[in-house]
């Protein structure tokens, strides 16, 4: 396939995007877990694949990394079809998974050497590469310790290092920071940013909008196996209504009355005693004041009132009508 780009002189051929996903389908028994997902990741860019648990994120990643065979559609990594030549795809990708896939009974160094051997690096290159990565990921001091003794953050770093041993130009990160403390998360973000700065193409799945915000050039939101939104983080947030007022009442009854009364302020939704009002961009403080007046006029006595930026939960609430916590049926795998 030839990819064309329009410029001042007309159409010119350009390199195909590093990852091309074209109407990808995967079924597990009767359940269609991925229903015709399409997107592209240009070379050297980061795509954030967002979605609640069970949305199909991991299934998409597993198809792109040749762990699962697609039931329909096509996917190409660096122009190589994942169905036709999976072995060639494998030679060009790195995968770091949801749970750190390191051998707990091997040392950090041995884990990297193992991957180096299995990726068929030259014998004398393997030790050097392992050493280099241990240094880069601040694991040098623990290089010869059994990795079972590592902290969660160290294991994630080792897992990511293992994914990089054979210098893959395309990297898949499936929820790379889930379960990490803020420090560990920041460290890992720094590493990913550096890799991208040096030309690696990254596909990242995450449940944290913040993470996608920091790392991703583009975001694709999927739910129930379909793409439901696409754009930059800024574009997605704009969609949400830029600010959220969260009000907790003292009982459900009061909350129901408050939700009705707050309609002039913005789009209000109620969950038990909790009310969430999406208010138009830039008007947060004024809307807050208005909400206070309305509640006071209705003689309603809120327990808490918070004005905050939209979170991923708000994104999902807006896009899908449910929060990430609601759909917890697990990834179809």
């Amino acid at each position, binding site marked *: 396939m030839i990819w064309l780009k329009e410029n001042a002189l007309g159409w010119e051929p350009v390199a195909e995007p590093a990852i091309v996903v074209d109407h990808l389908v995967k079924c597990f028994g009767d359940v269609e877990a991925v229903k015709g997902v399409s997107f592209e990741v240009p070379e050297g860019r980061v795509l954030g694949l967002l979605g609640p648990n069970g949305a199909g994120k991991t299934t998409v990643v597993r198809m792109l990394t040749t762990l699962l065979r697609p039931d329909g559609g096509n996917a190409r990594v660096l122009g190589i079809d994942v169905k036709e030549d999976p072995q060639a795809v494998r030679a060009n990708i790195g995968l770091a998974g949801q*749970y750190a896939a390191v*051998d707990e009974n091997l040392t950090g160094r041995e884990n990297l050497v193992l991957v180096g051997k299995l990726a068929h690096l030259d014998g004398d290159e393997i030790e050097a590469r392992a050493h280099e990565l241990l240094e880069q990921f601040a694991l040098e001091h623990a290089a010869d310790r*059994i990795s079972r003794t590592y902290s969660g953050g160290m294991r994630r770093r080792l897992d990511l290092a293992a994914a990089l041993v054979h*210098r893959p130009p395309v990297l898949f990160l499936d929820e790379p920071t889930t379960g990490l403390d803020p420090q560990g998360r920041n460290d890992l973000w720094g590493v990913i940013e550096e890799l991208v700065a040096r030309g690696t193409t990254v596909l990242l799945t995450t449940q944290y909008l913040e993470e996608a915000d920091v790392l991703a050039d583009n975001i694709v939101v999927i739910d129930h196996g379909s793409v439901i939104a696409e754009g930059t983080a800024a574009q997605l947030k704009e969609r949400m209504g830029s600010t959220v007022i969260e009000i907790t009442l003292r009982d459900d009854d009061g909350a129901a009355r408050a939700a009705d009364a707050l309609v002039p302020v913005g789009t209000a939704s109620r969950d038990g005693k909790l009310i969430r009002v999406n208010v138009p961009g830039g008007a947060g403080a004024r809307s807050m004041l208005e909400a206070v007046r309305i509640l006071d006029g209705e003689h309603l006595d809120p327990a808490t009132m918070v004005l905050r930026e939209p979170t991923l939960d708000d994104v999902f609430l807006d896009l899908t009508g449910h929060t990430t916590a609601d759909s917890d049926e697990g990834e179809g795998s």
Partner: protein
Amino acid sequence: MTTVAAPARATTRVNRGHAVGDAITMAWRNLLNIKRNPQLLVFATIQPVIFVVMFRYVFGGAIQGSLPAGQTYVNFLMPGIFVQTIVFGALTTGVGLADDLSKGLVDRFRSLPMARSAVLVGRTLADFVRNFFVVILMCVVGFIVGWTIGTDVFGLLGAIGIILAFSYALSWVFAIVGLTVKDAETAQAVSFPILAPLVFASSAFVPVATMPSWLQGWARNQPVSVVVNAARSLTIGVGPTSEYVIKAIIWIVGIIAVCAPIAVARYRRAV
């Protein structure tokens, strides 16, 4: 954290002729695992040692009477203990594979440009090496409690060879179990009901002639008995040795021929 090296585009090469090298790499990794967990090896050998002592000194007197004249129970028992040990040892193949699957390691291996067969071949090879050491240790224990070889050193080596070949075949059976249940505890739980009738309704510990007639047909021809009989006749020197050995080889080859392709197919599909 210091600078991360630039990933050059498409530096890796795809070479498809790595089946042997990759299998050896995987065997190295699995042997390192065994070395790092010596307690597993110790527990795997303590149980058969207890069996040797218990059967030899507790049940030996009672069973002695059912043996053909001139045979001692310890000589009858040792080949049975060997086979029992490696049968239960084969379980670790399945448990280890299930463990790799549940921890996501198999995902890593499957996303690497390595030979598809290497995970299974490497695992069964490592278990073969492990079994080799267990069998050597068992020999030593046997000699301490009075085991004697009625034939010669070639008989003993032949018996050990058949027992190890059988252990390798069983590794493939339990590879299927491990790849099917996908978690270590379940693999262990599922395996015991398969193993118990094989090991105990066999000629491993008692002469088949002492069993009820409906059981004798099974007990005489099932693989554990056949392998035990072959090892026994090779070390005692009584019985139709070549017939037993041929039957044992047929079982071993048959099990590998059936189970290895099934295991490889399951590995390819395992998620």
